[in-house]
């Protein structure tokens, strides 16, 4: 969205290092006891897996590393987790919620 892009769709790959843009806020809502992603005129309610992925979107950790961590934590097959992570991040990137440089 900013001047660093040439306004083309970003395709998320295992080496991508996703981050939340500064105007996207992952916030815990104590009143409702859940996490929200606050975006321009949108509120998303991430499920537990999405929360874990979003918390790791720091612009440094690669998608592959995120999936490796999650596969370990959830004792699940890496390839499956990687595919799910990529498809989720692609969807969020298309919605402008994550920046996947």
């Amino acid at each position, binding site marked *: 969205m900013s*001047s660093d892009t040439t306004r*083309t*769709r970003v395709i998320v790959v295992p080496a991508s290092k996703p981050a939340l843009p500064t105007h996207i806020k992952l916030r815990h809502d104590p009143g*409702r006891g859940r996490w929200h992603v*606050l975006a*321009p*005129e*949108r509120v*998303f309610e991430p499920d537990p897996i999405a929360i874990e992925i979003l918390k790791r979107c720091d612009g440094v950790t690669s998608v592959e590393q995120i999936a490796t961590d999650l596969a370990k934590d959830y004792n699940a097959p890496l390839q499956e987790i990687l595919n799910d992570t990529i498809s989720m991040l692609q969807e969020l990137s298309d919605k*402008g919620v994550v920046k996947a440089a």
Partner: protein
Amino acid sequence: MNEIAPMEQFSEKPVVEACARAPVGLLAELTHRCPLQCPYCSNPLELDRVNSELTTEQWQDVMRQAADLGILQIHLSGGEPTVRKDLEDIVEVAAKVGLYTNLITAGVTLTRDRLKRLKELGLDHVQLSIQDVDDVNAEKISAYKNGLAKKREVGKWVREFDMPLTINAPIHRLNIENLPNIIEFAVEMGAGRIEVANIQYYAWALKNRAALMPTRAQVLKSAEIVEAAKERLKGVMVFDFVVPDYYAKTPKPCMGGWGRGVMNVTPQGRVLPCHASESVPGLVFDNVKDRPLADIWLNGQAFQKYRGTSWMKEPCRSCPRAEIDFGGCRCQAMAFTGDAANTDPACKLSPHHGAFVAAAEQESAEQTPPPFVYRRMAPAKAPAAE
């Protein structure tokens, strides 16, 4: 990931149940003053005057109460919110209490320095409205000179400060043919999001309906244009497309259901379930000056009146869509059928649906539409004659 869209009154998706108790969004109409005179303005025909507006401290208190109530997003609107010199003071408090702040502006009264300051104070997002991308047309619609050039400038500043930008484009018969250029304009401006928002016919827009209503063919074509652009611009710009419900078969879930996710505070501090709800008789609107916001939301008569489904009559009561569209819009039901508890005439099950659609078809087919009635404050006082 579930998505709840507090401002998308017209989306088909039901509001997520977990959030139904506390409102998600608050539309703060800081003022009714505006340099533009768009004939589809959503403000009421009777506008609040400057000397009756809430003070800085009162608005700041609304922000604090909103956060306490569980509101997540605050939409600073108007009129034109930037005509208030204390906008910065209000944004500062809103950001401090953790509200996601959205400025809804026409841009023409904004300066670069002010925008910079607003960003520093924590403003999260700017929604910039445009009337058209054709200068002559834009001027005709807004009754304001050189607005478009100023908006281009504002859009540039927003991107310069690395803030997210939404272009809001109200669509009607005067600009619907320019839709491809409007979309292109938003891309050029660096917008991450565009609202292609067909006019909804309340207040000034209802008064000007015959001058604004596009034909069904135009609307269908515009939907095709949006679909194609959406696909082409996937990952570049997000689209929100609002259709005019005169050509719909089911009504919009207005405000995501009455008193369910959104509330509105007028310049004077009246708290409304939606910005048009003052057109519904029999409602009592509490004021933030008299009663806590949470109490108004939970117990206020205006909020309770059409909340949920128990107020419904047939065909809504037994309708499988009762909790999807909530019988549509109470204000539209009131305006068109004379009873706000009737189903919205946009619904094909309404006995008024035929006349409703016919009105749109007839008006849009007129070769020469009537002139605009521009949005203006009524003269201050007319002591002698009406």
